[in-house]
C-alpha cells in the first residue's frame, strides 16, 4: 500500500489541537512521508469541496465538539469518506471545556457573549443570527447544546487530552504508519492508559483519605511530594485516565480531568463527586455531625465547574433543564 490518505476536519475548536501536531517539530515531516493530506484547513489550501470530491480516504481526524449544524455536517462527511475515524482532543471525545456551555440555555450564552461580558462592545446590541436577519443565511445555525462527536458518528480511535500531548500524536502517527503497512488498529483504540492517573503519580498517597477542609491552588504552599487530595486540593486523578505524562502534576498543579473517565466509569464528574463526598471527614462523620458536614461541603461552591470541566457534554445530566421556576437566572 502506498501513502495513506488523511483528512482533518474541525468542529468547535480553539486551535490547540493543531498546535499539538505542530509541537511534534521535525517529526511532523514523517507524517508527510507516509501520508497524503487531502484536506486540513489549518495547514493547507484546500476547500471542503476537495474532500467531497475525493472518493475515499483512509483516516479522518476530527478536532472539536459539535456546536453548529455545520460541524454536524462536517463530521458526517468525514465519517462517510473515512475508513477510520479519529476523535482527536478532549472536545471531540467528551465535549471538553466548551461543553460547560451546556449548563446554560443558548439564549443566555448569546446574551453573555454579545451583551453582558465585560469585554463586549456592541452599541447596536445585535446578536448574530437573532437580530441581524441578513446574517442568518451565512452564519451556521447554532445547536442548542454542544455534543461530543460520538453522538452522531462511530469513532474508531480516541485520542483524549486538552490538547493531546506530543507522545499521543507520535503514537497516532505510529498507527498511521502501521496502517500504511496493512495493519489496522483494533476498534475503539484509546491512545491513553486504561488505568487512572493516580497509578502513575509519584506523590505520597495516604492509606485512607480523609479531607477536613478544602483549599484552592493559590491558597498556601502546595507540598510537591504529597497527594493533592490529602492537602485538601481537588484533583481528578482518581477518575481520570493516565497517559498524559503527568504534565500538570509535575508542574505542581492538580489534575482537572482532560483525559476523560477511566474504563468502566460512565460519568467522570459524578463518579468524582461520589468519591470526594465519601472522603469528607471520612471516619469521623459521627463526631462532626450533619450540620458541620454541610458547612464543609459548602466549601465547594462549584461542583459543576470543578468536576465536569471537560466531560459535562458526555455526562448523564449533560444539558440544562428549566426546572427552577422563578429563580431561573442565578
Amino acid at each position: 500500500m502506498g501513502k495513506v490518505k488523511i483528512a482533518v476536519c474541525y468542529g468547535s475548536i480553539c486551535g490547540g489541537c493543531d498546535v499539538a501536531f505542530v509541537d511534534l517539530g521535525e517529526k511532523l515531516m514523517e507524517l508527510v512521508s507516509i501520508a497524503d493530506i487531502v484536506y486540513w484547513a489549518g495547514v493547507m489550501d484546500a476547500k471542503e469541496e476537495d474532500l467531497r470530491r475525493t472518493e475515499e480516504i483512509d483516516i479522518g481526524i476530527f478536532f472539536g465538539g459539535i456546536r453548529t449544524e455545520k460541524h454536524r455536517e462536517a463530521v458526517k462527511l468525514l465519517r462517510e469518506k473515512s475508513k477510520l475515524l479519529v476523535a482527536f482532543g478532549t472536545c471531540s471525545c467528551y465535549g471538553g471545556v466548551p461543553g460547560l456551555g451546556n449548563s446554560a440555555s443558548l439564549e443566555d450564552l448569546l446574551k453573555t457573549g454579545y451583551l453582558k461580558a465585560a469585554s463586549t462592545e456592541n452599541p447596536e446590541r445585535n446578536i448574530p443570527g437573532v437580530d441581524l436577519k441578513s446574517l442568518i443565511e451565512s452564519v451556521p445555525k447554532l445547536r442548542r447544546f454542544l455534543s461530543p462527536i460520538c453522538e452522531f458518528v462511530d469513532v474508531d480511535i480516541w485520542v483524549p487530552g486538552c490538547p493531546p500531548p506530543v507522545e499521543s500524536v507520535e503514537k497516532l502517527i505510529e498507527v498511521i504508519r502501521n496502517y500504511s503497512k496493512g495493519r489496522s488498529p483494533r476498534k475503539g483504540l484509546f491512545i491513553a492508559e486504561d488505568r487512572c492517573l493516580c497509578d502513575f503519580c509519584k506523590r505520597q498517597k495516604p492509606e485512607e483519605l480523609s479531607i477536613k477542609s478544602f483549599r484552592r491552588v493559590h491558597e498556601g504552599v502546595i507540598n510537591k511530594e504529597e497527594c493533592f487530595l490529602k492537602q485538601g486540593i481537588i484533583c481528578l486523578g482518581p477518575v481520570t485516565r493516565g497517559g498524559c505524562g503527568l504534565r500538570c502534576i509535575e508542574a505542581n498543579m492538580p489534575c482537572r480531568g482532560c483525559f476523560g473517565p477511566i474504563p468502566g466509569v460512565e460519568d467522570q464528574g459524578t463518579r468524582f463527586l461520589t468519591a470526594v463526598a465519601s472522603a469528607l471527614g471520612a471516619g469521623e462523620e459521627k463526631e462532626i455531625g450533619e450540620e458541620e458536614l454541610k458547612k464543609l461541603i459548602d466549601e465547594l461552591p462549584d461542583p459543576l465547574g470543578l468536576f465536569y470541566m471537560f466531560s459535562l457534554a458526555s455526562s448523564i445530566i449533560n444539558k440544562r433543564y428549566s426546572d427552577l421556576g422563578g429563580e431561573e437566572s442565578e
Partner: protein
Amino acid sequence: MFRMGEEFEPKIIAFLCRWCGYAGADMAGTARYKYPASILPIRVPCTGRITMEQVLKALKESDGVLIAGCHTPGDCHYMRGNFQCFKRVVLLKKFLRQMGINPDRVRLEWISATEGRKFARVVSEFTAELKRLGPLRR
C-alpha cells in the same frame, strides 16, 4: 406520558436500604397505612451503596428520587453508610441546581424499621410536592 388537561401523577424511584427504609415500607404495608401508588421501590443493601450516577439515571426516568436509610448518627448497619449517602446527596444537589434542576426532586430521609407511619407520610408529602413542581422536563 403526561398530557395537558390530565392530572399529573408523579413517578418516584425510591432507593430503600434493606435494614431501615425498606423495612419501614414493609411496616407501612403491614400496618395498612395509606400512601399514593407513586413510588417504584428498589431495595439496596445500604444507602452508602448508592452511587450518584444511579441517582441521576433514576432522575432522568422519573420526576423525583427518594432515598430512605437508617437514622444518623448511630443506626447504620455498616457504621457510616448513611453518612456517606448524606454527604453525596448534599453535594449532588448543588450540581443539580447548577444544571437548572430543582434540588428538591432528590429527597433523603431517615426512616427506621418501626417508622411505617413516617414512610407513608414522606411518600405522601413528596408526591404532593412533585405534583406542585410538575414533570421534570428539559
